[in-house]
């Protein structure tokens, strides 16, 4: 990585960190669980990296580790999504109970 690329990386990391901070900072306590599990899902983006790592793997060692990485990444993505969706579904249905809600 050249020096200019290094600074590009620093810009990106700082801006992404601020974005994460700002997006999350106003979340009410009630949503802490879905938020945590939602961000759990978001880091499931590791799957696309694992796919590329396995897809470009040449030696058997790389293929085995890459395969495991894709399995883990895929489990992270689907599991994270399903759990978050289930939790939020409950918040939805608890709102729709008649007579209550704001």
């Amino acid at each position, binding site marked *: 990585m050249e020096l200019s690329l290094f600074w590009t990386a620093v810009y990106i990391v700082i801006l992404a960190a601020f974005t994460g901070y700002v997006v999350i900072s106003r979340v009410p306590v009630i949503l802490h669980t879905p938020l945590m599990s939602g961000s759990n899902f*978001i*880091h499931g*983006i*590791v799957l696309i990296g694992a*796919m590329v790592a396995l897809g470009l793997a040449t030696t058997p*060692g790389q293929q085995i580790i*890459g395969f495991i990485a894709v399995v883990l990444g895929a489990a992270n993505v689907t599991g994270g999504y399903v*759990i978050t969706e289930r939790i939020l579904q409950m918040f939805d249905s608890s709102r729709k109970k008649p007579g209550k809600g704001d």
Partner: protein
Amino acid sequence: MVDLSYLIDPVYIATIIIFIIGLQRMSHPLTARSGIVWAGAAMLIATLVTFLTPELTNFALIAIAIVIGGGLGYIAAKRVAMTDMPQMVAIYNGMGGGAAAGIAAVHLLGTTTPATSTLAVIGGLIGAVSFSGSMIAFMKLQGWMRPRPITFPGQQVVNMAVLALAALSGILLLWQPSFLPVAFSAYLPLFFVLSLAFGILMTLPIGGADMPVVISMYNAFTGLAVGLDGFSFATPNYAMVIAGIIVGAAGTLLTVLMARAMNRSIANILFGAFGATEETAVEIQGSIKSIEADDVAAMLAYANSVVIVPGYGMAVAQAQQKVKELMDQLESRNVTVKFAIHPVAGRMPGHMNVLLAEAGISYDHLFDRDEINQEFPGTDVVLVIGANDVVNPAAHREGSPLFGMPILDVEQARNVIVLKRGQGRGFSGIENDLFYRDNTRMLYGDAKETLGELVQAIKRL
């Protein structure tokens, strides 16, 4: 095949934008559900477009791995009970960390530049720690391991030594000095074994009650590992970098909020082995007095205001549905029912909110510690269901291990009823002063059964 790889970057950029919008929508109860659906759609498209990456081979292997991992993840997440959510979040965090460590390992086995391999080493270390640490957290929450802190003499020294050795092997891996007798290839397994060992050692001394902080911290770790790993590719994968760093920052913030709710520093949570030592030498005045369900039923039915404090015990007993029935009974008798939610009640951030929502209790009944605390002096009956440390007035007493932790001041209510399975202590292992107060009565038994009895008794009144 037509080269469609020019689609990858635009799709990744769109994915990131939708992730951010999705997260933002998830920070409001009304739009939260659409947020995750948006993010899910973006993830699916990003995954599909990744198959267009130039020079990609091993398509069959990739597809098989996705089917296996995705299938297992889907089935497990669909089947798990709501009360087991904390350990599921922990295990998926760990898997993300493991995948990040795997990517780092693949890159370190291949051709790298000094910059990409440095980031692979750092990302690999953090990912491996998150993987093994999350697995320990999972086992503790699942009950496969004692949830109490596991300590041994010189633990901190050993842990730090293992971390230092892991870092050293990482440096040797990058540096590849020619004067050392061990071949380069020996450092890679060594580096990962040491990193994994550190994750295990770091999590062993952390007790069950601190799990909300730990889960949230490993969430941040995995995010950070994924972000750094994004730079370990020959062409940086900016989708991974940005999504990972966003999660890292968000997770760190959530971890800090959790720690603050317990009035403890993160260092204290990680290294304090909280609850391992027994508090001695404090004489608690008074005695523990128990009460029968019928008397409690009468007390609740003729009260004006009742505040229910749920804790991990409610989750263990799966009692949330019975809590809802009790609330309905009381409300039909014009008793005001409110729920006091401590930020760290349960085993993950917001755990109680999720369970009560599952039972169909709308969230305008739920109140944060700050909102409800001044109301306790005017409350007739407080019903504590399987909560312990978060209502322990010892937090106000200097010298107690809990000192300074913001608690729910339930002892100020006219009557306090504590539903408890047995006479054991909370996860912190600290004796609870509340149980000895004059206005406190203990109602022993399984929370679900006891609540059922209460509902029946109130119906009979």
